[in-house]
């Protein structure tokens, strides 16, 4: 496993994409096909279930290191990463043993079925056969999540370079729910028609946020403008009488949307549709929070299905009767999509209608009304554009409305993870409710490194109480918190929940009594819920 450990180490010690790419290619050149397949799986987020309970792992590491549990836990708290803490505290290995990465993964795969004492023996022995960097990687294989900045796209680039196969083809072959034990490296990546392609989605084409003045995009007539809906981007596949639904996170989510299976059956011909899954009631789209109630549930109760039934707002047509349309210009794909929807005897499939404007300034005014439509803003797509792979500049832009914002007071702070393990980077914010500060949101991004260091110092100097990893701090710092949506929530003390809260800026100019109140948030909530009269634009 030393090659894989070296790869992780190399990926971990640089922030430069080109160096990461070179490290991946170097690894693919020395690794066996079996090991490469595991590496591809793990680095693209395909992780087997956690084989060992982390609590046990902590106890076994403490025991082997001769440390009391409290001291191990304190160390973990400071380091911020369990895999790393274990690797650091263990005594040095008496003699190193090399086992292949594949063998280690197979062994880990068997642990779930073994008795606890046998698992303990296996893990403790394994630790004592490895050096620190290998131990760290081994522990990460158990605890999951490398967080070393390798995107699916980067992995695809490395494979394309190594195999000399086109990136798009490889991206397609890597999609779907394959597992490293299901086929060989060659079968997955080098077979022209790798088995049953029926369920395979296309990689999503993603837009960058619009950075320039829209006037610079040229005549508005060259652009197809749509609402940017706040649902779940999805791909509906209808092939050979089967329906599959994929989320943008490349998860097969068909089972979560029985309505879309019904939709699929109603389609007259085989096709692949890119669209937005949105909850609807009485012909109106519902806020994202309605859809959220369905997410991640194993079984959907009748009540949930009735409260927030979904429809698909179709953006694009990627395949028709087995023909890949991605190289066809958008305007033509659009015509085909319109015809398909007209011919489909179902009201579960809606066309994402065009937003018409004769000038960019007129469009800018329309964009201001996005929230009333329950949209996040506008999508701008060049009518001649092909359907590309991943996030690309140039032909597609998202032009979102500015986030909602509120000034809030920081009242708790927690240490970060990974890169920021010994800094207080995660904060809880509060607004006024009478004379009391009520927590309403957590946010951990939006500040510069310099500001984080400054806040960290403040936290350390102004701690009131410590609750495990959390500190309550003297309420003094005011931040502007931005968010995309707001919904009622019975789970939060404040009674509201925010969507994508983040720090917009540090309001050093504001004393805490000028922060906003819970009433301000509630009036935003009322405005937000009053939206949803968007049916006219979707049907």
């Amino acid at each position, binding site marked *: 496993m030393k090659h894989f450990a070296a790869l992780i180490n190399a990926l*971990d*010690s*640089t*922030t430069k994409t080109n160096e990461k790419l070179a490290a991946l290619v170097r690894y693919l050149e020395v690794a066996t096909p079996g090991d490469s397949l595991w590496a591809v799986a793990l680095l693209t987020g395909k992780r087997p279930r956690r084989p060992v309970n982390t609590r046990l792992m902590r106890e076994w590491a403490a025991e082997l*290191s001769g*440390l*009391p549990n*409290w*001291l*191990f836990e*304190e*160390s973990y708290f*400071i*380091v*911020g*990463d369990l895999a*790393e*803490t274990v690797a*650091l*505290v263990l005594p040095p290995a008496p003699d190193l043993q090399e086992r292949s990465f594949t063998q280690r993964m197979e062994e880990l795969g068997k642990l779930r079925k073994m008795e606890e004492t046998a698992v303990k023996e296996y893990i403790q022995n394994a630790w004592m056969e490895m050096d620190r960097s290998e131990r760290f990687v081994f522990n990460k294989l158990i605890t999951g999540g490398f967080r070393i900045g390798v995107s699916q796209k980067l992995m695809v680039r490395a494979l394309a370079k190594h195999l000399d196969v086109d990136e798009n083809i490889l991206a397609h072959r890597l999609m779907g729910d394959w597992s490293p034990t299901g086929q060989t490296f060659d079968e997955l990546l080098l077979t022209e028609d790798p088995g049953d392609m029926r369920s395979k989605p296309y990689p999503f084409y993603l837009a960058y946020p619009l950075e320039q003045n829209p006037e610079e995009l040229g005549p508005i007539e060259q652009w197809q403008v749509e609402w940017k809906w706040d649902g779940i981007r999805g791909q509906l596949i209808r092939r050979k009488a089967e329906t599959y639904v994929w989320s943008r996170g490349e998860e097969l989510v068909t089972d979560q949307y029985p309505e879309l299976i019904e939709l699929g059956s109603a389609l007259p011909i085989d096709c692949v549709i890119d669209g937005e899954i949105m909850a609807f009631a009485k012909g109106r789209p519902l806020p994202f929070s309605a859809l959220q109630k369905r997410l991640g549930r194993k079984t959907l109760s009748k009540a949930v299905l009735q409260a927030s039934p979904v429809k698909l707002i179709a953006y694009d047509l990627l395949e028709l009767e087995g023909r890949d349309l991605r190289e066809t210009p958008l305007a033509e794909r659009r015509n085909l999509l319109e015809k398909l929807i007209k011919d489909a005897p179902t009201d579960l499939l809606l066309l994402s209608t065009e937003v018409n404007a004769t000038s960019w300034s007129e469009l800018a005014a329309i964009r201001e009304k996005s929230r009333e439509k329950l949209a996040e803003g506008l999508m701008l797509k060049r009518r001649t554009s092909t359907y590309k792979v991943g996030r690309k500049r140039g032909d597609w832009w998202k032009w979102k409305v500015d986030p909602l914002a509120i000034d809030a007071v920081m009242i708790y702070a927690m240490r*970060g*993870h*990974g*890169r*920021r*393990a*010994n*800094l207080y980077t995660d904060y809880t914010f509060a607004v006024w409710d009478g004379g009391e500060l009520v927590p309403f949101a957590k946010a951990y991004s939006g500040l510069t*490194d310099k500001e984080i*260091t400054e806040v960290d110092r403040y936290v350390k100097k102004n701690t009131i109480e410590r609750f495990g990893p959390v500190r309550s701090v003297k309420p003094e710092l005011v931040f502007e918190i931005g968010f995309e949506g707001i919904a009622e929530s019975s789970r939060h003390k404040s009674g509201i929940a925010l969507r994508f809260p983040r720090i917009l800026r540090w309001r050093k100019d504001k004393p805490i009594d000028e922060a906003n109140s819970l009433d301000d948030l509630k009036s935003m909530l009322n405005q937000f819920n009053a939206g949803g009269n968007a049916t006219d634009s979707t049907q």
Partner: protein
Amino acid sequence: MALLTFSESGIYCAKADFYIDPWRPVKRALITHAHADHSRYGMQQYLAHHHSVPVMKLRLGDISVEGIEYGEVIQIKGIDVSFHPAGHAPGSAQIRVADGSEIWVVSGDYKLVNDGLSAAFEPVSCTHFVTESTFGLPVFKWQEQEIVQQSINDWWATNKANGLNSVILGYSFGKAQRLMQMLNPEIGEIFLHGAIANTNEALESVGYSFPENERVTREIDKTRYKGAMIVAPPSALGSPWLRQFKPYQVGSASGWMALRGARRRRNVDRGFVLSDHADWDELNTAVAATGAEHIYVTHGYSTVFSKWLNSQGFKAQVVETEFEGELQEIGEAKSKEIETE
């Protein structure tokens, strides 16, 4: 009353009216070593190991300072005072203060490993031991200096082969000199930031010598930096001064580099785990070797280390000071290391 107490100005000996490493201006200050958080401005009189003297003068200007040898016992108002090697940096000392059977040792900053530069740490028996705890967690365990040395020189050679210059960051006093003597001059030329060159001159005045090197100045032909090693203080990171060495890779040598989080936050190309402070095992060894019953834990993971010592049968307590350990090297220190150019 105890022989030493912990006051608002520093560690204080009331019977002899002196302070050790005070952080506020006092009449008489005994200084363990010349780093900025232990040796501060504004004392009327300083006493330090004579190797500390030129560095203190360089940094603090025209001060009234007396030098003392390791092991030399002097009496201050009837109290025995002596300095003993702490192994942390040139001239660094543990200060022993004795009044009959009550013996205190204030260790300042220390490490047990002999780095070949500073006089090696010597355990001093005492009844009360004041220890730092900069790296007082069991996750900190240093590798042997030879291994770190090898990896630094390998890194330098690889950079050179790739057409890159190397910049390595370490305190201008202590770490920089230790790094210099670890570098293999056969790989290429060694250049120094002015603050380090000045410190070297101060140390050379009391007999230290360093491998061949040159101070970075505007007059130097830039082509000479090709494949060279530039030794610079941590504050150089992100400064315009660094630009003249492009294209370069930058490495940081600090105990903090043992943690991925700190390494990544520091945003250097390479972190070398090299510290002038004791690691977990060294701290435990040092504490045990004193035979002291009472342990006072200062800067670092003081709460954890003190709790651990109590569980091991010592009477340990946390003492708040304004010492900072190695924070400078990850850009987190409050006190500014003085970089005189």
